[in-house]
């Protein structure tokens, strides 16, 4: 069982490896304005979009204009989504006549989808009309993902350019990411998902009479179109409360594999785009393997823990051979669910095909750590690469300290300013997670939402703030997050976790773009071999471990020991 799970991980990783280069190369062509095979169809659409939007595609922006365009676009997106949620009872495509979404929840959800988090304090089938799902939430699934890709591409340009004031146009990058990358792949994936049983319907809920003669009400909706972009854009917000464990979102092992591949495709591809656009493909691969290494360790640990199951239940007479099946679907089993959990949290996706709250403590530790490392193990679309960029800067800085030279990265001097900005974006995440968790476990409003006692309760609060600040969106879902306390605080964590990361990173990109390029010398620390791969992985782990080890040891670590001892709470 465990060996089989390891084999699944290996084959899945191999498939990711196969799509990395072609997709990365394609994205380089898209963002360098080179020709692609989709141009005949998409160029006219692109021109029409610029005309309707009032965009001059030739006008490039410096990092400040790039950042402010992105911020304005995102804030207006939040307002737009909130408006549709609040007015859904008056709008069409609401066949089950759902009422308006309450204010705090509407705001939380709008921030959640615009920041690419997709934290959900609601049950989709009982809260959101078809119109809200497709015209508000799914649209932001595209646009928040396209924003992430745009930022990553701007960062790559900052590295690649020499003595340049500009880093590209946000509007052009946003549009091209949507039209050339996200839309065609989503369309393709949605059709495949539909063929397997993922629903795409505008009908109201169906009422069926079961074999027992009881009535079962079955909500339907435009699920497949949302499911595809939800995975591809590493958004993760389910149409249904049960997310990708719901058979209408993820009906077969084949759709499960497809959804996992969609999650990693763009983040992995972007590592190749980084190498290709900077002219150092070997550097791109070095980054890929640092991520791959951390992924394989995490997936292996989660699979081991979940396939070994829960000794407390085995003692009650349960057959241990299937592993821990609480919160998991039979069609996926313990192995595929552990793999999905690792993928969805390594990337900033947050879709789940099983309930993380019921994972074994060690199995649940892996997703938690993945997010706390900054979701740089491939990471969110774009967000993974620009997050990794922060750690790359820190790695070359540390390497520079060790050899006693000014650190350089691909010919650019890394100076005090860049390192300070890098640390700022690391600290934002830390601050939101640890201070938020502390607020939750020291106040009545925070504690009253926990559904588990003992160390698992701490894990629930920690996971919520980790997921929100990291823009992941998965949850230990027993936590009752639909309270004013959590709706407001988590929305703040999501907002800061997204935009207070992006702005310093764009400032770094702007600073790098303006610099002169130095020729490599004997003293240059190479960023393209196994030594750099190990250094980068090491820096990511050390920063994460130093920050979160104390709180992790009070949560999942102590719970794993207590579970082995048979303690319950």
């Amino acid at each position, binding site marked *: 069982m465990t060996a089989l799970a390891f084999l699944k991980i290996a084959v899945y990783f191999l498939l990711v490896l196969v799509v990395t280069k072609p997709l990365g190369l394609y994205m380089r062509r898209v963002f360098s304005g080179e020709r692609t095979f989709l141009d005949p169809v998409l160029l006219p659409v692109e021109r029409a979009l610029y005309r309707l939007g009032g965009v001059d595609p030739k006008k490039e922006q410096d990092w400040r204009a790039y950042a402010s365009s992105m911020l304005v676009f995102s804030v207006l997106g939040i307002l737009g989504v909130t408006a549709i949620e609040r007015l859904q009872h008056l709008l069409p495509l609401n066949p089950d006549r759902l009422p308006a979404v309450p204010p705090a929840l509407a705001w939380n959800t709008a921030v959640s989808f615009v920041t690419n988090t997709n934290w959900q304090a609601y*049950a989709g089938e009982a809260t959101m009309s078809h119109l809200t799902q497709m015209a508000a939430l799914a*649209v932001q699934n595209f646009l928040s993902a396209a924003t992430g890709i745009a930022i990553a591409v701007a960062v790559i340009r900052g590295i690649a350019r020499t003595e340049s004031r500009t880093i590209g146009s946000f509007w052009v990058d946003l549009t091209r990411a949507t039209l050339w990358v996200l839309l065609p792949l989503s369309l393709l994936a949605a059709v495949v998902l539909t063929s397997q049983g993922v629903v795409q319907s505008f009908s109201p809920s169906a009422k069926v009479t079961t074999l027992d003669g009881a009535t079962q009400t079955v909500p339907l909706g435009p699920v497949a179109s949302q499911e595809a972009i939800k995975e591809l854009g590493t958004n993760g917000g389910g149409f*249904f409360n049960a997310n990708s464990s719901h058979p209408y979102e993820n009906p077969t092992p084949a759709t499960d594999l497809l959804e996992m591949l969609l999650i990693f495709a763009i983040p992995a591809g972007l590592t190749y785009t980084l190498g290709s656009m900077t002219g150092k493909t070997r550097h791109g691969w070095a980054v890929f393997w640092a991520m791959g290494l951390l992924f394989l360790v995490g997936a292996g640990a989660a699979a081991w823990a979940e396939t070994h199951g829960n000794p407390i239940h085995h003692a009650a007479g349960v057959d241990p051979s299937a592993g821990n099946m609480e919160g998991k679907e039979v069609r996926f089993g313990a192995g595929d669910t552990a793999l999905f959990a690792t993928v969805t949290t390594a990337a900033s996706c947050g879709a789940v095909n099983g309930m993380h709250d019921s994972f074994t403590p060690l199995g649940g530790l892996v997703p938690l750590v993945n997010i706390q490392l900054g979701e740089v193990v491939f990471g969110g679309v774009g967000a993974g690469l620009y997050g990794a960029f922060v750690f790359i800067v820190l790695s070359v800085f540390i390497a520079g300290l060790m050899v006693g030279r000014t650190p350089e990265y691909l010919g650019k001097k890394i100076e005090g300013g860049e390192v300070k900005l890098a640390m700022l974006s690391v600290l934002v995440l830390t601050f939101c997670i640890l201070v938020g968790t502390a607020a939750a476990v020291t106040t009545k409003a925070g504690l009253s939402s926990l559904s588990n006692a003992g160390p698992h309760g701490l894990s629930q609060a920690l996971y919520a703030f980790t997921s929100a600040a990291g823009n992941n969106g998965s949850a230990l879902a027993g936590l009752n997050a639909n309270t004013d306390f959590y709706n407001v605080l988590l929305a703040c964590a999501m907002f800061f976790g997204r935009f207070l990361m992006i702005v310093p990173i764009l400032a770094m990109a702007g600073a790098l773009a303006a610099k002169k390029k130095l020729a490599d010398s004997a003293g240059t620390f190479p960023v393209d071999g196994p030594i750099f791969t190990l250094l980068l992985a090491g820096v990511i782990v050390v920063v994460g471990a130093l920050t979160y080890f104390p709180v992790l040891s009070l949560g999942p670590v102590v719970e794993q020991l207590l579970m082995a001892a048979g303690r319950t709470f």
Partner: protein
Amino acid sequence: MKDHVLVSIRLLVVFTLLLGFAYPAAVWAVGRVAFRSAAGGSFVTHDGKVVGSELLGQAVASPGLFRPRPSAAGAGYDATASGGSNLGPTSKALAERVAAEVARARAENPGARGPVPADAVTASGSGLDPHVSPEFALWQVSRVSRESGIPAAELEALVAKRTEGRFLGLFGEPRVNVLLLNLDVLSRRPSEGGGEPPPR
């Protein structure tokens, strides 16, 4: 800044039309033409009546039919309230529930041998799991045989017929669709009345 606001509003509107309406409508149209049943919910009919979706589990009380897993969706298999128990590994409530399910499974299936299959006593993530493991299905055969009058060997053959394997021989786990299996059972009843509801 005013420029950014105007461009943002105009692009948000245009993108909403493209991504929020045209895209889902296109997927719907393809599904309607090419995969009508799958896109519509994979509903199954029996004797001309829709009895459920092939993809969604449903509660089964009749002892002459195969039972699904425990469900945490609403009062059980409530498709308007999908979800899991979300009880943690050291939860006392979960340990007690599992122990109670073990006792219930043993009492209901006195002829069954060996430890209780894990899926028989655990709730799924969706609460709507349409499958059970082949082990759990076989575990129930002697009870279903006694209650329905169908020979055990015939039921075992039905379970084998309904067992789906792993994708590419690797991904997912072997499983049996409970609704489809139960429809097979109903059509084999010795009384052969067709589709009258099973005795409660």
